[in-house]
């Protein structure tokens, strides 16, 4: 019964608190719009630059979309699996569908110099670190 006649100021206060927590939290913040964990990827460091390698078997080059902005890389696309007609299916393990994934790397990338290569079902992105982001060596005099 007490719940029915709760104090209006009390509920307003808790609403305000919830809003504050929402704004202060990292969750649902200004993150990239993409989601999902496909394709799986490995990130390597080569000298100053980063190399991102994803396994994308069965995805054609034209079905892949790569975007780079700031330190965020977005990989999106469609994976199609062709099923012929009049077939008896014995085993079906390959998955098909759409994917959209964005990851942020801890260094700033020179978006103009990014190279993408897709060969034998592997997508490799060469992400050169931006010149202005590189640490400066200071000679000790």
């Amino acid at each position, binding site marked *: 019964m007490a719940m029915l006649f709760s104090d209006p100021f009390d509920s307003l206060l808790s609403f305000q608190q919830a809003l504050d927590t929402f704004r202060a939290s990292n969750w649902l913040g200004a993150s990239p719009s993409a989601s999902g964990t496909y394709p799986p990827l490995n990130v390597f460091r080569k000298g100053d630059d980063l*190399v991102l390698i994803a396994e994308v078997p069965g995805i054609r080059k034209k079905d892949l979309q790569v975007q780079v902005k700031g330190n965020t890389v977005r990989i999106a696309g469609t994976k199609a699996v062709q099923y012929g007609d009049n077939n008896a*299916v014995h085993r*079906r393990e390959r*998955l098909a569908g*759409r994917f959209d994934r964005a990851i942020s790397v801890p260094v700033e990338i020179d978006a103009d110099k990014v190279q993408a290569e897709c060969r034998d079902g*592997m997508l490799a992105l060469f992400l050169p670190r931006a010149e202005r982001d590189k640490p400066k060596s200071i000679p000790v005099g």
Partner: protein
Amino acid sequence: MSDRKYRIQEKTENTMARTQALEVQEKKEQVSKEEKTVPARYFIPNTDIYETEDALTVIMEVPGVVKQAIEVSVENDVVRVEARIDPGKYEGFEPVYTEYNIGHFARSFTLSNKIDQQEISAQLGDGVLTLTLKKAKAAMPRQIAVN
């Protein structure tokens, strides 16, 4: 009856899965009965198998494998595929963030149909290996005309 029901259910699940976003499939490491002399990791490639009237089609996902590094053999009704990646490509790379393991691929299937050993074709494109195993003439269904 129950079998049929199960099939229908499976079908709806498959169509559902197609509209969903892709998910990451865990790479299963192969636990082989035979041991290899070279210590290397082998994974089980995701495979689709279809059967048509005259052939069996085996489709495997082997990302990162070049044509020359694939071995397909059929012996004693067992089709065996071994696909090797080139680990040398990762030389000088220092991993900073990893989500999947790197290794060779191997998988074998015992065939339930008689296969014409001479008529096996293999194709590789975008990291997907397609094997077409033509059924032996004797195993094909024969139409018998009724007079």
